[in-house]
């Protein structure tokens, strides 16, 4: 390892791999830092297929998708530091000083640009307020997936799944195939949060029941989980009295959402967006802190890895370029959006294609999404169906839209009248 690099990429998952390769291709000296012993990030344990349809036009398994980029990395000039943690980062006049810890000890490097590709974390039982004892047997879906697919140890014989996120649904199928009994999937919201195809191929195919507007209210067991209490919830997600029932099981698996991981970003004072829970950034993935970039799930939780790769490439390429004074125009949203990314548009580096992502806050039919500049529509797109769990991508040419720093750049969504 050298003492200086143009670009350091933190995290060797799909976003970090893409960012490192893109920065290398753009001529930068690159160090890719990964805390685990193998590259690939979460894809290592996502052995199911369905990855890469957008990028490769094929249904690949997670490790296979990652392998494409790991193989490309071996042909590049990118230096990789495995089993290496970044424990501290601070801005200096030369860029960013990173403190790294590995088996060789502790050392510091200085990089001109830092790309955060730290992915996201699962919400845990502590974050969904489940009452009762603290027995073993309560896992996040990702932890259950790690036991099953990486360690080869089945973490349950008889389990209940709380939450209907895609990882939970995929684990329902996986555990069933490996011989465990999945008693049911319970979702507090009135609609499932995972993709419809996963409800079909992971639950229906195996006769696993799903109950919406239901949640786990209590857990039982001293050393190991013995049972959970399930109750129906009302519109305010409060348990309805008299609906509680006890289900005997040895594990509770949680698939209750993901949150971008930005511990290091916070120590650098990077501004975060309350809606995405990731950094506020421009279309190049540059955060509001000069020289610090973010991509992939660290920026906002994606549902397709193909878009994570794209985001990594954008950030990596931009990080390799020389710094330039930015001229920012905010992208505002109006209407029922959960969020839109990027939150800022840098006019100084606008190219003919700018990629926007958004999620709506409720299910809509025949919705019209409009992007306007100072009230003038520059893009309209009709969607037959919009759902909060499904992220939408818009590619738009903003370079000819006459944008200025004080322009009102606005994304709106409107559902067609039901009477139409």
């Amino acid at each position, binding site marked *: 390892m050298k003492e200086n690099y143009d670009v350091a990429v933190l995290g060797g998952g799909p976003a970090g791999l893409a960012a490192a390769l893109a920065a290398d291709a753009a001529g930068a000296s690159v160090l890719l830092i990964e805390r685990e012993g*193998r590259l690939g990030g979460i894809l*290592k344990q996502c*052995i*199911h*297929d*369905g990855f890469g*349809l957008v990028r490769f036009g094929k*249904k*690949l*398994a*997670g*490790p*296979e998708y990652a*392998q494409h980029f*790991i*193989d490309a990395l071996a042909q590049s000039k990118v230096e990789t530091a495995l089993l290496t943690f970044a424990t501290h980062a601070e801005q200096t006049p030369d860029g960013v000083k990173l403190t790294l810890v590995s088996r060789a000890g502790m050392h510091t490097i200085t990089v001109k640009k830092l790309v955060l590709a730290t992915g996201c974390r699962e919400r845990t039982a502590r974050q969904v307020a489940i009452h009762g004892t603290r027995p073993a047997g309560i896992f996040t879906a990702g932890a259950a997936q790690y036991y099953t*697919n*990486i*360690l*080869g140890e089945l973490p349950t014989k008889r389990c209940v799944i709380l939450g209907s996120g895609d990882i939970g649904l995929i684990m329902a199928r996986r555990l069933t*195939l*490996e011989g465990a009994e999945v008693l049911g999937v319970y979702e507090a919201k009135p609609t499932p949060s995972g*993709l*419809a*195809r996963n*409800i*079909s*191929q992971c639950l*229906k*195919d195996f006769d696993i029941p799903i109950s919406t507007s239901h949640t786990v209210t209590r857990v039982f067991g001293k050393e190991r989980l013995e049972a959970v209490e399930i109750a129906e919830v009302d519109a305010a997600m409060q348990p309805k009295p008299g609906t509680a029932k006890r289900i005997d099981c040895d594990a509770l698996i949680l698939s209750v959402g993901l949150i971008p991981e930005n511990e290091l970003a916070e120590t650098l004072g990077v501004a975060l967006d309350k809606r995405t829970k990731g950094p506020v950034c421009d279309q190049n993935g540059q955060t509001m802190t000069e020289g610090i970039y973010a991509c992939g799930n660290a920026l906002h939780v994606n*549902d*397709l890895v193909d878009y994570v790769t794209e985001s990594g490439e954008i950030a990596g390429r931009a990080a390799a370029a020389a710094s330039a004074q930015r001229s920012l125009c905010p992208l505002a949203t109006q209407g029922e959006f959960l969020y839109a990314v990027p939150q800022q548009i840098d006019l100084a580096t606008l190219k003919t294609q700018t990629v926007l992502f958004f999620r709506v806050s409720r299910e809509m039919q025949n919705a019209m999404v409009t992007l306007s500049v100072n009230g003038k529509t520059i893009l309209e797109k009709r969607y037959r169906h919009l759902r909060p769990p*499904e992220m939408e991508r818009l590619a738009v040419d903003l370079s000819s839209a006459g944008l200025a720093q004080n322009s009102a750049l606005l994304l709106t969504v409107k559902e067609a009248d039901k009477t139409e």
Partner: protein
Amino acid sequence: MTELTCIVCPMGCTLQVAQGADGITVTGNSCPRGAQFGKAELTDPHRSLTTTVHTTLTTLPLLPVRTDGEIPKALVPKAIAALAKVLVEHPVKAGDVILPDLLGSGIDVIATATATE
């Protein structure tokens, strides 16, 4: 008429599949693959299968694998049992065939990760 969720891609179209006098008709699909899927679900459903097999490799004790194509849905439990018996004792590259012609289906099982030692 049967209502199905198409599993070909993440769009997850809701398909209406009906058996008529002149064959099966599929509506609600956004692409030809959806129509194909709808018909197959009523006559001969197929699934791709992903799982892991054991190895003697130190870097990858569990090798992820998948069927290189779809196998009859009814064959899935037997396929899982057959793959549980496989032990890989040499380095593999993603794409290498681990078990050819799975249970006579004509479909190979391939590695989805690379492990060198």
